[in-house]
């Protein structure tokens, strides 16, 4: 990062607050770069893991989805600032994920609720 201290119209009125804000953003920029490296490494791991046989196709799917979830968590947490967000956003997302989970559960349950269905087979291989 360059240290371009120009005083354009974006400068905050209170010098103290502005200095604090700028320092906070500087620290965030460093974090963004670490997250970027982590996402790149995560992508490489995902590709490499797909060429390894973890016993069953479903085990490979589970591992790939775990890596994807970690990557998504990094994007949401740091790039979308969810690690330090206001309460209203958290409440909103809690509702979203409740309904998202319910939707997935209901659709898959309805379609696969019969003896010998694929989803039941997958569940029994995990819980054997």
């Amino acid at each position, binding site marked *: 990062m360059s240290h*371009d201290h120009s005083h354009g119209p974006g400068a905050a009125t209170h010098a103290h607050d502005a200095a604090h804000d700028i320092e906070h953003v500087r620290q965030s920029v460093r974090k963004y770069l670490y997250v970027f490296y982590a996402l790149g490494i995560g992508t490489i791991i*995902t590709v490499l893991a797909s060429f390894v046989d973890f016993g069953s196709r479903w085990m490979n799917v589970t591992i*790939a989805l775990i890596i994807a979830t970690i990557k998504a968590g990094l994007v949401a947490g740091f*790039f979308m600032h969810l690690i330090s967000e206001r309460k209203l*956003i958290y409440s*909103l997302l809690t509702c979203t994920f409740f*309904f*998202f989970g319910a939707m*997935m559960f209901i659709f898959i349950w309805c379609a696969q609720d019969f003896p010998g269905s694929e989803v039941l087979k997958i569940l029994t291989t995990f819980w054997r």
Partner: protein
Amino acid sequence: MEIPYTVKPREDTGLFNGKVGIWLFLASEVMLFGGLFSSYILLRVGAEEGFWPHGWLNVPLGTANTMVLIISSVTVVMAWASLKLNQFSRFKLYQGLTVLCALIFLVIKAFEYTDKFTHYAVLLKDGSYVDGHLVSKTMTADGQTLQSITLHGTVTKDYNQVIDPHKHRKEHHEHKEITVAATNIVRFADVAKLGQRAAFKPVPTMKDQTGSTLMIGNRAPRYNSYTAIYFTLTGLHALHVLGGAIVIAFLWGPGAAMWRTEPERFTNRVETTGLFWHFVDLVWIFLFPVLYLL
């Protein structure tokens, strides 16, 4: 009339209104893509054994596109941070790079789509499949009847070699130009009569002299459940990339004039579009392994 809380946070929420707005929109987007993901799961687990394709997509291209989106996610957040640090020229650079990444993503996607649309499978009367890219086709003078089709690819009796090239990658398959006369191709209507299962849906316009559709299919959405959900999910995602790119380009170009009059409001606009852009990246993080690798 002035729109309230474009800069100043509301006392009760601590947020400017645009941010609440974009999060509500993203919540609805989660449900939209979630519904399609559940369709993917059901189509996949419901597919007959040996009929779900593996290794149809180009993994290096998909990986490159994943990297392009990750880079754009960093540049979009750096554009916002640059405004916070009062570095407008840096903002212009990062915002421009984001638009460039979006365009690279769409160009790569277009190449991938073209590759799928030109990839054909033909079922011959001796029960074998010709699978490969279209070289040429000859039609009668009126353009209604197919005479012959030439593909660059392989011939096999085992459809599994078509559906799962990854599993059969170690076997030697000679790729060559293969020309097939229309008279040697099974009619779609006859597949069941021959006691076979139509492994793919043919192109309706590929007809013989009796007007019957022949078993010639390209990997368009109609081909099978996999191509249907692949084009639906990636097509919807690509539309999001396009829409996001248009807004980001606007804020990079004419929209940037607001920086001179209302810098904080402009910074908030950049943050809001950034949130949308990260969501687009987030969806791709799941689409890539699910469609390309598994």
